[in-house]
């Protein structure tokens, strides 16, 4: 129903990304390139033990090394417990404040215990080797079940059985409903620890002045979150911390959604030395900094004879490692969007446990708990259909929400633009679903199969989440040359936030996309924006940009109205001109209007000096700071065709068809790029990626890309086909809602189900390695 979408002139075209030229010629503006005069380089000393008490540190030899300017030890660091997650207030009750910048207790191998700032990174590194730390080793535990067992080492005081949070959500009466179910299915589905693998390392440069004010550059996804967390941990007023917005960063994917150790350590070292301090993480440090938490899901589902969900019970156990960090929120998003809200089911009970272990800490990662849930739910649907003889497409169609239903997460709103059924039927047709063979029936050594995975309900931001920030702001200013400047705190992670927001502003202003420029911003100069996360920027920041541009446009029309002697309501802007609707001759250029608004009182004309009037004076500018009206759900469906070699267990992806209901399609090439990149991440999760740790020492065994395998151009399928189903989301900017995350969530179950269809082997534990397939075939 493309006809029902809002008609636009700029949106819907794959305009050139404004940052592309700079990036292909060297990319000057990454945070990793920031250098300041007199800058020092710092390095962190990390604990080799997973659980230990520090009984003494001697850094005197390090301090004496020529070139060393400052040493930071646990006793130099404010002992304020915090939660590092950017998108919640630091003391949000739903989160756990269990971290310190440095502490005398070490809870995972790799936790920082000291830092050195020196004139070069090499000297700082050398100095670390001169620091003597005495550790008293403590018993450690690396498995969530073992951590909950009686007698397990206590990792944090007060966390009974090492459980950090333990949410329970129930609808109706699941126990009674299971009694009435005709069929009951149960299974345990496990996912592993993976890293976002942004290519630009986490890096920061922090400078201080004599007044104790900090200026911060960092590769991160949230200016205001960094300001808030840094001010909190250092015990400073927020106004003394200025965070500079990077023009762009080298990827984030949720992995830069929390304050690291590096920013507070660099800040303290800068305050000590009065010099700018830079810290860049090594890839090993990145790997042990933020990951997608592994979750084990026990899932039990009751089905009626006619193939409807009647009851669901689930228990999810999340290993958050040494600190709760994102794990306290990931578990909730996982429970709600990964399990409970996926398909309507009247009676459900779910319990989540986020469990401390002495493993590395977790983090944010696209999908935020839903990939772990979707792997369980979507795999089990396939098992149900196989066993009871239902067609998996028909089964989902029968069990889905419909357009106009109350939104399952925010029931006061409706699923106004929901097109899940269209996603399913159109993608099924494209892949050739009707010719799918029975499981394992393909002949020969290499067998083909088709599988399906869905994410029926997701978010466009965080309206409805009690503790999560969700507001945005923008400033739009018209220039005398007829262009416009847009400034917002929304960070471009690479996924095209600059392009999308400039296009939205241009559309509203009646300009071309390349006439709007994203300009400098920092926390002192622009309104608050929540992070670039939760698939929220197009929808939420987009609404704020549209509002600010709308305000600027209104002022433009008022000034133009005075000059054209027309009411602003009778004017329109297009092709750089303000026109009286219906009288094309009565027009004035945007350039002339803006110039006039900023002119001195008297302007020179061909007829000589002419007075202007005071009412028209002032820069034409619009400002917004607002929460979005809702949190509309997109829907996502993916079909994958695989070929499994029954001799080697190797899986080759042959075809991918992805359908997404996104409201208005703003930048087609950008949207496809999200889907294609999302598939790479989801495929890696399904088949190969695994951050490995030594089960005895807790040491990270995958410390670089040689040990952490992700799909290269060779393993990727030749083509990922995107189908974008447009509709008009009434609360979105020009009808748009979100896109980013579900394309990472759906590949794993789609691939798992395709493998089952090819060879009849059900693997319930990611990654699905050749060994697991061969074992399933009875060949190992």
């Amino acid at each position: 129903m493309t006809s029902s979408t809002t008609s636009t002139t700029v949106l819907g075209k794959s305009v050139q990304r404004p940052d592309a030229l700079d990036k292909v010629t060297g990319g000057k503006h990454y945070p990793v390139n920031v250098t300041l005069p007199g800058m020092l380089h710092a390095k962190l000393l990390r604990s080799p033990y997973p659980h230990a008490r520090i009984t003494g540190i001697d850094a005197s030899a390090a301090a004496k090394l020529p070139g060393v300017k400052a040493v930071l030890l646990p006793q130099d660091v404010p002992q304020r417990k915090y939660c590092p997650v950017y998108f919640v207030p630091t003391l949000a009750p739903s989160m756990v404040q269990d971290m310190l910048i440095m502490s005398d207790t070490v809870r995972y191998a790799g936790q920082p215990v000291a830092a050195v700032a020196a004139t070069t990174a090499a000297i700082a590194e050398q100095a670390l080797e001169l620091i003597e730390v005495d550790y008293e080793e403590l018993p450690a535990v690396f498995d969530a079940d073992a951590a909950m067992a009686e007698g397990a080492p206590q990792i944090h005081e007060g966390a009974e059985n090492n459980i950090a949070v333990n949410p329970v959500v129930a609808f109706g009466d699941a126990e009674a409903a299971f009694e009435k179910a005709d069929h009951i299915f149960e299974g345990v589905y496990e996912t592993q620890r993976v890293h976002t693998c942004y290519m630009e390392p986490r890096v920061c440069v922090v400078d201080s002045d004599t007044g104790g004010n900090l200026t911060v550059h960092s590769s991160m996804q949230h200016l205001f979150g960094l300001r808030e967390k840094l001010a909190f941990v250092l015990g400073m007023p927020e106004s003394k911390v200025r965070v500079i917005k990077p023009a762009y960063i080298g990827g984030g994917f949720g992995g830069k959604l929390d304050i690291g150790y590096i920013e507070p350590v660099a800040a303290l070292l800068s305050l000590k030395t009065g010099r700018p301090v830079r810290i860049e993480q090594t890839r090993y440090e990145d790997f042990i900094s933020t990951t997608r938490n592994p979750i084990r899901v026990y899932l039990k589902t009751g089905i009626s004879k006619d193939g409807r969900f009647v009851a669901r019970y689930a228990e999810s156990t999340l290993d958050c490692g040494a600190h709760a960090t994102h794990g306290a929120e990931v578990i909730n998003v996982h429970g709600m969007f990964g399990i409970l809200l996926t398909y309507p089911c009247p009676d459900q009970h779910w319990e989540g446990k986020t469990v401390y272990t002495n493993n590395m800490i977790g983090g944010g990662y696209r999908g935020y708990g839903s990939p772990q849930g979707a792997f369980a739910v979507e795999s089990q649907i396939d098992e149900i259909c196989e066993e009871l003889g239902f067609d998996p497409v028909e089964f989902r169609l029968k069990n889905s929400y419909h357009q106009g239903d109350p939104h399952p997460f925010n029931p006061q709103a409706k699923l106004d633009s929901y097109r899940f059924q269209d996603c399913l039927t159109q993608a099924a047709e494209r892949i050739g679903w009707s010719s799918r063979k029975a499981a394992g029936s393909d002949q020969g050594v290499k067998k083909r199969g088709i599988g399906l995975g869905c994410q029926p309900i997701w978010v466009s931001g965080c309206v409805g989440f009690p503790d999560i920030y969700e507001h945005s702001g923008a400033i739009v200013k018209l220039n005398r040359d007829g262009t416009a400047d847009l400034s917002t705190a929304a960070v471009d992670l690479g996924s095209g936030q600059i392009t999308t927001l400039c296009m939205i502003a241009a559309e509203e202003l009646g300009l071309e996309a390349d006439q709007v420029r994203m300009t400098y911003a920092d926390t002192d100069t622009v309104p608050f924006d929540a992070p670039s996360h939760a698939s929220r920027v197009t929808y939420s920041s987009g609404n704020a940009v549209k509002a600010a541009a709308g305000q600027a446009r209104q002022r433009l029309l008022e000034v133009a109205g005075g000059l054209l002697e027309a009411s602003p309501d009778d004017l329109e802007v297009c092709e750089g001109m303000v026109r009286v609707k219906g009288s094309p001759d009565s027009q004035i250029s945007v350039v002339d209007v803006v110039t006039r608004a900023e002119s001195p009182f008297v302007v020179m004309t061909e007829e000589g000096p002419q007075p202007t009037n005071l009412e028209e004076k002032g820069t034409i500018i619009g400002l917004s700071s607002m929460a979005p009206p809702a949190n509309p759900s997109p829907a996502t469906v993916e079909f994958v065709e695989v070929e499994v070699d029954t001799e080697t267990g190797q899986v080759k992806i042959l075809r991918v068809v992805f359908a997404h209901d996104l409201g208005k399609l703003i930048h087609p090439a950008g949207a496809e790029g999200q889907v294609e990149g999302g598939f790479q991440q989801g495929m890696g999760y399904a088949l190969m990626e695994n951050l490995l740790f030594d089960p005895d020492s807790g040491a990270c065994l995958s410390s670089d890309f040689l040990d952490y395998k992700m799909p290269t151009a060779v393993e990727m399928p030749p083509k990922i086909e995107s189908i974008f189903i447009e509709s008009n989301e009434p609360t979105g900017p020009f009808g748009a809602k979100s896109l980013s995350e579900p394309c990472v969530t759906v590949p794993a179950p789609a691939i798992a189900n395709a493998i089952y269809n090819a060879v009849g082997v059900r693997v319930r534990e990611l990654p699905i390695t050749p060994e697991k397939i061969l074992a399933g075939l009875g060949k190992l």
Partner: protein
Amino acid sequence: MKQLISIEINGEVHELAVAPQDSLLHVLREELGLIGTKKGCDTGGCGCCTVQIDGRAVYSCMTYAMSVQGKPVVTIEGITENGQLDPLQQAFIDAGAVQCGYCTCGTIMAARELLATVPDPDESQIRHAIAGNLCRCTGYQKIVDAIKLAAANSA
């Protein structure tokens, strides 16, 4: 410890004092300010640091600066001539192959070796030529499209 060497980068000869363990990547970024070459891992696993040495695409993080004496080095800064983009740079823009862009310069340098040796590569040759260049944003599809486009435009 440091030793004076002379290396040719983008047609310009530089006299530099380098330590034996200094990588070419380190010298490019830290000594010469050629920051278009990126560090994604420093251990030979990502390809962000790819440059051309004697025409061959090489990881500069795994190359000792001392070892490139007498061998011309080309970095991303050296492929734009008189403001005219290399066909690969233009094709990466046109095909929408740039997202975060952190991998882009390294991948362009790898593809440059390919197109210099195989002017009309097939899909598999392209994919193998950039198999040492990780990208986490694009899924490589539009990168492959860009390399095809550059080959077609240079034909």
